[in-house]
């Protein structure tokens, strides 16, 4: 799923041409760029069969230009919302727009950022039996900050 979303955005997004894995970018990384992160999955309420994956797409842009950030966020929203995509193992899925964040300045990355969150409906049997995000590439680092 991760690869499918990443590839679709790389192929189709006009305003953002660079897409990165989470936690790799630094303050010196050329902007704009996007990051696709997965928030995990959760059961659907009052539904024994349903579950959702949550996917968050962050856009990082130069300070002072929230108009272009908004435009990029809107483009990502319209690209992914309701788009039928296919995982490497042939399972179809379709992200649904959930919400768009407020404006935020990331001190560490020295960038304006906003994100848009999607949920991907799926069956719990898939959640249990498949590595639905496609890989486990979050680096798991637990360094610095506070």
């Amino acid at each position: 799923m991760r690869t499918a979303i990443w590839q679709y955005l790389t192929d189709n997004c006009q305003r953002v041409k660079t897409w990165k894995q989470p936690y790799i970018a630094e303050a010196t990384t050329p902007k704009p760029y996007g990051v696709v992160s997965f928030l995990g999955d959760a059961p659907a309420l009052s539904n024994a069969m349903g579950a959702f994956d949550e996917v968050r797409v962050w856009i990082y842009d130069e300070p002072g230009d929230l108009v272009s950030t908004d435009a990029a966020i809107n483009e990502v929203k319209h690209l992914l919302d309701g788009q039928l995509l296919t995982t490497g193992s042939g399972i179809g899925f379709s992200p649904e727009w959930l919400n768009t964040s407020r404006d935020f300045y990331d001190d560490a990355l020295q960038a304006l950022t906003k994100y848009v969150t999607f949920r991907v409906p799926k069956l719990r049997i898939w959640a249990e039996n498949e590595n639905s995000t496609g890989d486990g590439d979050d680096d798991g680092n637990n360094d610095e900050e506070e």
Partner: protein
Amino acid sequence: MPGAEEASRRIFERRHRMIAALIALAQNAGSQLEAAGKRPASSGGAPWTDRTGHARQGLFHDVVFVDDQIRLRYAHTVEYGVQLEQGHSGKYAELEPRVKEHAPEFLAQAERIVKSR
């Protein structure tokens, strides 16, 4: 109407029992959230490495009943809490992932309370 007053009284009592049970559930869940977040990062607590310890110790929860809603809040008290939550694509986020982790069990218990009373 005969019996209407008694029925009304029972509905009123049932509603209050349910609200009390849901508040107790929320308080218990809030305590669990806060305790989990305050554990050291190496034990599954909030994922940042402490420098002053203020951020970890500043995690708190409360439960309020307003506008006919029970609200469980889990939050930071340090000013830079928003940077921890949203900086670096959420690398050091504690609140949202923790709530998501506990939400299914909490909602299942809440559903049982509502259906059983």
